[in-house]
């Protein structure tokens, strides 16, 4: 590919082990986790300036690494990423003193209309170009490595030019980004497409995984929905083990976004991730 290589900003994180997505609803629970060393926060929910929510500040005060996770940059959009959103995202990363940031390989708006959801890209070279161009724009404002997360999609575009693994790998190679691997997305996509999730694990660069999302879902009318509001099913935990057998990532985290269960259930989920990955429990 005759293009100026991107500055490859990868780094190997310390082995943070098991973490959790910080959400205001479970702030007290997260703050009380004795072994916690890393967490993630939705970047758009954090004020760039001014006070952080108390629970989040408490984590930073005790040295927990907090990674901002963007959900609205629309890096896969055909149009250039919005400057105001980039500015906010970069300011949050600095505010949290984050060692890396993350976003999705997806688009969330087009033609000035918000979809309200992460939408899949056609696996075309044109889409690779769009993502790479937007990651570069983001990289002009963000000084730390950027990790990209492939999403779960209930439907696919026709006429793909690349397999999912090729699509992901090419984006990472050309943008210099790291991989945020959501193992529940890998499971959901394989299940809904009738493919083998291990095939994806065997064909993406696992040495570039910055960290891993683990989440729950549920089947509804024949399709598996990556809900983040249900328990993590055993097959997803089994995939965590398969992943770690191949190349254990430095960190894995539980991602829960609603219908929060009581503390013992969250603890059981975190412990299950620790067991599946071989990391110490943090609870």
């Amino acid at each position, binding site marked *: 590919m005759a293009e100026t290589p991107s500055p490859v900003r990868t780094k190997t994180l310390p082995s943070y082990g098991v973490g959790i997505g910080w959400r205001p609803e479970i702030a007290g629970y997260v703050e009380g986790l004795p072994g916690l060393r890393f967490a993630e926060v939705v970047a758009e929910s954090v004020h760039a300036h001014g006070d952080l929510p108390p629970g989040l500040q408490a984590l930073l005060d005790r040295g927990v690494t907090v990674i901002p996770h963007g959900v609205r940059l629309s890096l896969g959009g055909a149009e250039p990423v919005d400057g105001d959103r980039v500015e906010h995202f970069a300011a949050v990363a600095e505010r949290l003193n984050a060692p890396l940031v993350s976003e999705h390989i997806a688009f969330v708006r087009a033609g000035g*209309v918000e979809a309200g959801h992460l939408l899949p890209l*056609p696996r075309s070279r044109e889409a690779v170009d769009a993502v790479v161009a937007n990651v570069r724009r983001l990289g002009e404002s963000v000084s730390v490595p950027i990790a990209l997360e492939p999403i779960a999609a209930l439907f696919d*575009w*026709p006429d793909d030019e690349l397999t999912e693994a090729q699509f992901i790998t090419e984006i990472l190679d050309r943008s210099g980004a790291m991989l945020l691997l959501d193992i529940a997305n890998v499971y959901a996509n394989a299940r809904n497409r009738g493919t083998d999730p291990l095939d994806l694990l065997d064909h993406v660069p696992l040495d570039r995984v910055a960290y891993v999302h683990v989440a729950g879902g549920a089947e*509804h*009318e024949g*399709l598996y929905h990556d809900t983040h509001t249900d328990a993590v099913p055993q097959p997803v935990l089994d995939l965590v083990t398969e992943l770690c057998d191949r190349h254990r990532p430095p960190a894995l985290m539980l991602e829960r976004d609603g219908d929060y269960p009581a503390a013992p259930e969250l603890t059981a989920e975190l412990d299950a991730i620790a067991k599946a990955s071989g990391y110490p429990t943090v609870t």
Partner: protein
Amino acid sequence: MTTHNSAADPADAEATGEGGAEATGRGGPSLAARQTALVEALTAGRSVPEGIDGSAFEAARVALLRKRAGEVARQWPMLAAGFGNRWKREFATWAATRPTQGSLRDGWDMARSLVARGELPAVAAAELAEREAAWHYDGTTAPRSRRTPALSIKAGALAVQLGGRVHVLRRP
């Protein structure tokens, strides 16, 4: 055939080099056009782009509306409570052809349209009146705090705002 690529300003053309040229040379609609068609199908009831599985797309559309309903319920708990277990269905019907403006505005717009039809649940009236008294919302841009005292009567609820403090004086 050349296709329009809105991402391609001169600097990007240089940055993407050959990759960009290959991408736009393959024919068919541009990425921008495909993305716009997909978002319109998802949020405005337009037809599903050719080649995408209709039933899988419909499952995604319904899941998105239910997710939006949950987000609006967090911003407008009394509005959602007013519909009980019919909330997600009611919201999905209202929102099916209305792209999200964020959950605060979505709930606000729905509440106003219910008032206009005389169908706002009584239990949700005070919630709306309080917000109308506290904020100026023109229906098209983000709500702004009111700087002057205001009074709002919505579906039998009366709220006043003085110096930024809102008091509900009457509930239906």
